[in-house]
């Protein structure tokens, strides 16, 4: 059972990440590329949270309900890291989209192959 869980949760997270990377690499539309970036980040966030999960654990909050009892808590460190990663991801997305808007204003298109200066 645990084996199945391990592979399904991590697998789902990695699959989501790969879908995002695939979208970034193959799509020609700039907004679609940014959507790919956001999918990729989502997959990563799940991966990290899944890593912190502990079987039979509770949320890492010492509320009055758990006070004095001997409980196992899930690892709080990945949660703190994901919190940071989500916020940073949002900042990057916002900057990326404002760049897309500016590119559209200049070239009147958001297709990557129609903007000559964007090719490499």
């Amino acid at each position, binding site marked *: 059972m645990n084996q199945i869980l391990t592979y399904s949760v991590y697998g789902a997270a990695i699959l989501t*990440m790969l879908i995002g*990377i695939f979208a*970034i690499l193959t799509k020609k539309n*700039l907004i679609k*590329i940014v959507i790919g*970036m956001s999918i*990729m*980040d989502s997959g*990563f966030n799940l*991966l*990290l949270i899944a*890593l912190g999960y502990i079987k039979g654990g509770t949320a890492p909050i010492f509320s009055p309900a758990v006070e004095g009892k001997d409980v196992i808590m899930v690892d709080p*460190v*990945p949660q703190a*890291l994901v919190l*940071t*990663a989500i916020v*940073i991801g949002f*900042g*990057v997305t916002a*900057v*990326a989209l404002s*760049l*897309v808007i*500016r*590119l559209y204003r*200049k070239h009147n298109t958001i297709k990557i192959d129609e*903007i000559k*200066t*964007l090719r*490499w």
Partner: protein
Amino acid sequence: MVANPILYIALPLFTAFLVPLLAKLWKPLVRIIPGLVLAYLAVMSVVLMQQVGPDKPIITMIAGWKAPWGINLVFTSFSGFIASLISILAFFIWLYSFKFKKVEFDDAQKYFILFMLLTAGSIGVVLTGDIFNMFVFVEITSLSAYALTAFYKGRDGAEAAFKFLLIGSFSSIMLLLGITILYAYTGTLNMAQLAMLMPQVPMHAKIVSFLLFFVALGIEAEMFPLNGWAPDAYSQAPGPIAASFAGILAKAGIYALIRVSYTIFDLGNDGGFELLLVMGLITMVVSELVAMRQENLRRMLAYSSMGQMGLIMIAFGLGTKEGIYAGLFIMFNHAVIKSLLFLASAYLVYYTSRKKISDLDGFGKLLPLTSLLFGLGAFAIVGLPPFSGFWSKLSLLIATADNHMEFVLATILAVSVIEIIYYFRVLGRLYFRKANTEIKVRKPTWNSVVTMISLAIVIIAVGLHPDLITGLLHNAANTLADKAGYIQKIIPDLFSQTLN
């Protein structure tokens, strides 16, 4: 309190939050205050460098928790040297762009805030002792770099910035994955403890995460073929920012790469160093060959900069103390000389929109001082005596010869010839061609002249008296090579536990 490494980060952030309010009081404060902060950091670097020694690093706790539990800043002879280099260079670049008249007030405010945070982020990458914290600082650095690349509206800045952002987002996801793998197997994020626990990580996980780190930080360090962002970013960003990409951003990237491969992973003898060496060789050869074919001055300098980064990777890829010493020397020279070249070139191509090398005919007479300084930089970067570039290249050649790598040695020499060809082509245009009659030139302002001359003085002084800096470099090289010492200084309790 007065000289505390934490101020490298806290002070710029404090100022960045304060500047929008100060702008309402008196507008010139927006330009002056960031400069004062950078000046303070530069002075603080000098003070801290005198306190630090190979056996007594300055370790700063944050939030009162000791090393493996809390984040800490580690100012050793090695990281301190790079941090000081960055902070002093940042002050000079501020001085150069102090009278930034080309843009409106609103933009000038953002420019100085972004530049200050770029500096703070880079120093954070260098000083932090925590791997996730390093990621946060990498993100701060890259976000400010994206915004600064797209700073001018008239150029193709947005395209360059978008490319940069796209590659940067790959870099950050790979960095995060690498960090996650390490956390999964060791349960810690502190670099020293990671280095200590590394033997218990299974080999395949170690290799996967090392490759992730290598690619992610290779993007930041302009390694081929991950450096597609660099030529565009260098040529579209404002002049002083191009200089700080070479002197500050790339230095933070290569530092992180070295820290990860030398301290955290003990893959050095299992192919880690060879990988660095080979990638460095490829980067150097390809970039220099491409540089020779560039028509655009900025792009030429950008490719030359990547070639130098390749040289640095080769030096660190040797894995010997001499190699580290040579690599650090090249890092220092590259930071100073490339900044001078970029700063001087900004005036040479000020009014030409295409920044072509062929537009530079006869500038030696039109802009004598700037051309002279550019020429000095070109002589120094190709490694001609009596400039500082000579000594660093010599030490690298000696280090390669000691390792009996004749092929590497020959390649470096051959590439130097290429370098000489394309730099001298520019100098030939500057001095031995007739100027176009109706060409507009921009005379450099006094502050940029002061900046460029100071950098030139550093180049000549180190060229004539390499002893000025070799002591620092030797200390830094010894500190980096001493991995056990690093672990022991940062987490003494845990280190002694494992010994017993």
